[in-house]
């Protein structure tokens, strides 16, 4: 079976040649098989978001190659890749258009990726019923508010809607960049459960950055830890199944020679304690 995502020694340096030069990702290689769900942890500035941006095409990498489902997308612009890559960010405001209605936001995601793809396509009765059914599955009561502007929704509702938009047509790859970090704990839990269900039901290949080591170990089938633009630790299978939060922190310290420093991770450790 062909791999879903292949990263071959990709590198990205910001501000090359200036005093602010920053090697955000360095010669990083990673391969995801179809259906893989990889969780990613690492300190502040480790290069996690930069890795996602490179995969999504927010910029072109300085070196290396990126293959998505066997196709070389290294120099494909972001909006092209977005046809097959769904993304969620930490900020719930980033994924939806506030002055457009729930229906219009969904229509946008649906019409752009659905079979028709005509620039003059519109949603019909059938599509609307489909939207309603999908919204009902979120369990947030949004199915009765198709005509409400998205700006009136709460952060959690907006993030759940963004998740639906990103997956309404099954993407080849789903990138989740701390997508529950800005939500209150109860809502975060709900959105995380939704994510888990959608990814499992549809066998979506997925990468998720999280600062919650507990969810990093409990969700998905693989975990990687990043530091200074590189992968410093990879866990899967039995080794991962037997891993604890403390064990992981110790393993990080052993590899890198210092503690994992992420202001948000400390918070979530306290929460889990």
């Amino acid at each position, binding site marked *: 079976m062909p791999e879903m995502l292949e990263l071959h020694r990709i590198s990205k340096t910001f501000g090359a040649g200036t005093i602010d030069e920053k090697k955000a990702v360095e010669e990083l290689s990673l391969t995801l098989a179809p259906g893989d769900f990889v969780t990613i942890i690492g300190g502040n500035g480790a290069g996690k978001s930069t890795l996602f941006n490179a995969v999504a095409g927010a910029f072109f990498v300085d070196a290396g190659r990126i293959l998505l489902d066997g196709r070389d997308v290294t120099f494909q612009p972001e909006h092209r890749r977005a046809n097959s890559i769904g993304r969620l960010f930490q900020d719930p405001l980033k994924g939806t*258009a*506030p002055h457009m209605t729930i229906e219009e936001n969904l229509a946008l995601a649906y019409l752009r990726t659905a079979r028709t793809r005509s620039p003059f396509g519109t949603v019909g009765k059938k599509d609307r019923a489909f939207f309603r059914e999908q919204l009902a599955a979120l369990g947030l009561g949004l199915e009765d508010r198709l005509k409400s502007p998205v700006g009136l929704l709460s952060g959690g509702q907006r993030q759940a809607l963004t998740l639906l938009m990103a997956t309404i047509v099954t993407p080849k790859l789903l990138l989740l960049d701390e997508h529950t970090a800005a939500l209150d704990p109860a809502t975060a839990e709900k959105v995380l459960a939704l994510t888990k269900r959608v990814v499992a039901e549809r066998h979506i290949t997925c990468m998720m950055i999280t600062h919650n080591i507990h969810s990093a170990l409990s969700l998905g089938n693989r975990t990687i830890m990043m530091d200074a633009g590189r992968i410093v630790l990879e866990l899967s299978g039995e080794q991962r199944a037997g891993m604890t939060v403390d064990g992981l922190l110790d393993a990080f310290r052993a590899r890198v020679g210092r503690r994992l420093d992420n202001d948000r991770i400390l918070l979530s450790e306290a929460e889990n304690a």
Partner: protein
Amino acid sequence: MSLLVLRGAVEQGLIYALVALGLHISYRTLDIADLTTDGTFTLGAAISAVYVVAGQPLLGVAMALLGGALAGFVTALLQTRLGVQPILAGIITMTALYSVNLAVMGKPNVNFLKESTVFTAAQEWLGEYGALFEAALVTGALCVLLALFLRTQLGLSLRATGDNRDMVAASSINPAFTTTVGLCLANALVALAGALLAQYQKFADNTMGTGMVVIGLASLIIGEVLFGHRARRSLVCGVAAAAVGAVVYRIIVATAIALHVDAKSMKLVSAVIVAAAIAAPALRDKLLFYQKRREASRNA
């Protein structure tokens, strides 16, 4: 004000409504203050005038549409591909158009009192109501088309581009493309307005478009004030508000003239109308705030 004057104001308003529809796309939908508008309006008038003199009024309107779209394309190219700031991109194109428009007409103004225009047939058929009927038909049809367009995949993409830049690229929308489409459409509509107005008043001159972007914005805002929050909540109301606002603006101007406001002061009157219209929402909020504060202190 006589019925004749009122009818003239409504006719003009219906033509200027196309400018408001154009700005509904560029300013309201894409969130770009497109200063190309001034130059494009004159461009439409100039192209149309030249074709009328050559005996091809309808072809003139079609060519004006194309010319307007091209002007919008140049502005879009400057801001999406060449890194020029949106406002400056519009100013650059507008400045270039000043020379282009003179070159198109060959002189600062063109009169064609005896030539037949796109209004001639309707006027022969319906008499003095011909122009009104035709302008209403064209503007009405374009309102419907625009409202339908904004629901399509491309229309939704345009709206998302103006509403949330952050989500755009992640939703497989190419903002350079949607911005280009929007500016081409907007300027085609503005040029159409210029083309129709030239044929309506039977002359075109090189300063016709001066201040057009401000007048168009004022029309948009007058319409939105009249329609209230519905103008922002519903697509159809938003489009209708733009058109109605343009007509109301012309009626206000005609009233000012009927009240013997000196012709030399008309620009000043226009500026005051525009400033008042644009300031209205902010003034209303201020007023509400003072009211609330007074009530609060009375209850305290």
